[in-house]
């Protein structure tokens, strides 16, 4: 509990993040937060910007190959209650979507980065299909778009030391998968929802 609070404050201090909720409110109902991805700090940052009671039921999804290296990162994933996904070995009977749904049950929420990897930060890349299959199996989950601004300058790809600039996080209005909505349309719509928050 103390490490959690401490790390939350450290994450907020490094990122200098100002958090805005646009047409949206923090809530403990089951949600999937999906954001653009530009730095390794992103999962921690989104998680740390949620209010404490929402944080307790929310789990960031992170890449196993990065976050299981070294004792410090492993400890961090425990504190943040992260859900590690193996990006290299995706099998049919062990698909990440099934694993996520099993882990969250009927109470927890997820933080996802549907681009699949980090981008340079100038644009938002095309979304991978995970978000679609997730909502197809659980259409009741609220999907909340999140736009992370400036993290690409705080800890860019390939750098290991952060520069303490200010960043901002914008949470947008919830959306759902429409009935019979095609995969590509839905993914386009989700990506547009994130991009719209950039100018909000």
């Amino acid at each position: 509990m103390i490490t959690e609070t401490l790390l939350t404050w450290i994450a907020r201090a490094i990122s200098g993040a100002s958090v805005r909720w646009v047409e949206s409110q923090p809530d403990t109902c089951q949600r999937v937060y999906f954001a653009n991805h530009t730095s390794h700090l992103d999962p921690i940052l989104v998680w740390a910007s949620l209010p404490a009671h929402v944080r307790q039921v929310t789990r960031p999804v992170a890449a196993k190959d990065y976050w299981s290296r070294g004792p410090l990162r492993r400890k961090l994933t425990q504190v943040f209650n992260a859900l590690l996904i193996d990006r290299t070995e995706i099998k049919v009977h062990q698909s990440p979507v099934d694993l996520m749904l099993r882990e969250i049950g009927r109470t927890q929420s997820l933080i996802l980065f549907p681009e699949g990897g980090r981008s340079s930060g100038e644009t938002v890349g095309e979304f991978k299909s995970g978000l679609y299959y997730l909502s197809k199996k659980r259409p009741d989950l609220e999907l909340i778009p999140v736009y992370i601004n400036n993290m690409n300058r705080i800890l860019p790809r390939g750098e290991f030391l952060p520069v303490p600039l200010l960043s901002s996080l914008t949470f947008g209005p919830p959306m759902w998968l429409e009935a019979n909505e095609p995969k590509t349309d839905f993914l386009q719509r989700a990506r547009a929802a994130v991009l719209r928050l950039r100018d909000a």
Partner: protein
Amino acid sequence: MLQNWGLAAAALCLLALATVAGQWLRKHDSAALDRRTVDAFNARVQAWWFFSLLMACGFFSPALTIALFGLLSFWALREFVTLTPTRIGDHRALFWVFFFFTPMQFVLVATDDYGLFSVLIPVYAFLFIAARSALSGDYDRFLERIAKVQCGLMLCVYCLSFAPALLNLRCLGAEQDAARARLLFFFVTIVLFADLLQWVWSAFYRQHPIAESIDANRSWEGVALGSACAGVLGAALVWATPFHHWYQAAAMSILISLTAAAGSMTMAAVKRDRGEQVSGIFVEGHGGVLSRIDAICFAAPVFYHVTRYFFGSPTS
């Protein structure tokens, strides 16, 4: 001792007066002053309170005041670089700027190493930033990028560090620590008083704006009248300063007031260049640390060096 309390009492009176005026304006809506103007006035008064408390620390622990100024500098630089579009190629240079040059400058100020802290940033950091960005191999808009980082470091760290450096400035007639703490207190009080009064007078007389596109709320009349008021206040506070005659204190105060106006105008131009909406995303509510220290940034190095030149003791 009496002088310390006298200066504190004078500052407290001015602050109380400004606060009461601000609160009265907030309660009584008048047609001439809209809500935003009154809020801006109150934000300035709040910053003044904050700085006065910071200065009060100078009487008890100079090191603490220097450290707090260091944190302020760090935060201002953070805002400045956030508003500045740097590229990934500058990342390593920025890391050194934030975690080496900024703390180092204030450590040198605290140890009173004038020979080093007056050249650390203009010489070593200046060259280092250019070289480090060149080593990263990104030449796109190179000169523009390094100039922005250098400018941010100069304004937010180097210039601001001369304010706490006053705590170590040896003047004739200001040999004790308390006298130097009073000099800093005097300086900051004059800066903030001048800034506030220029702004108030500009609100009344706005026939000749200096540069309407940059700061619509600052007119030549306002700067002149504000500086005159600062001169009067400076002359009235001469007993608290190392200056020998009232006209010297008045001239110094007018100099402070004019450089403070230049600082506010410059920082307003920087913010205009990057667009208000950008700073609005990252710095919520208040105008940010950057807009509160702009006047001090410009006035501090000028005041420091003029005082050193005319009143410094020969040994230092």
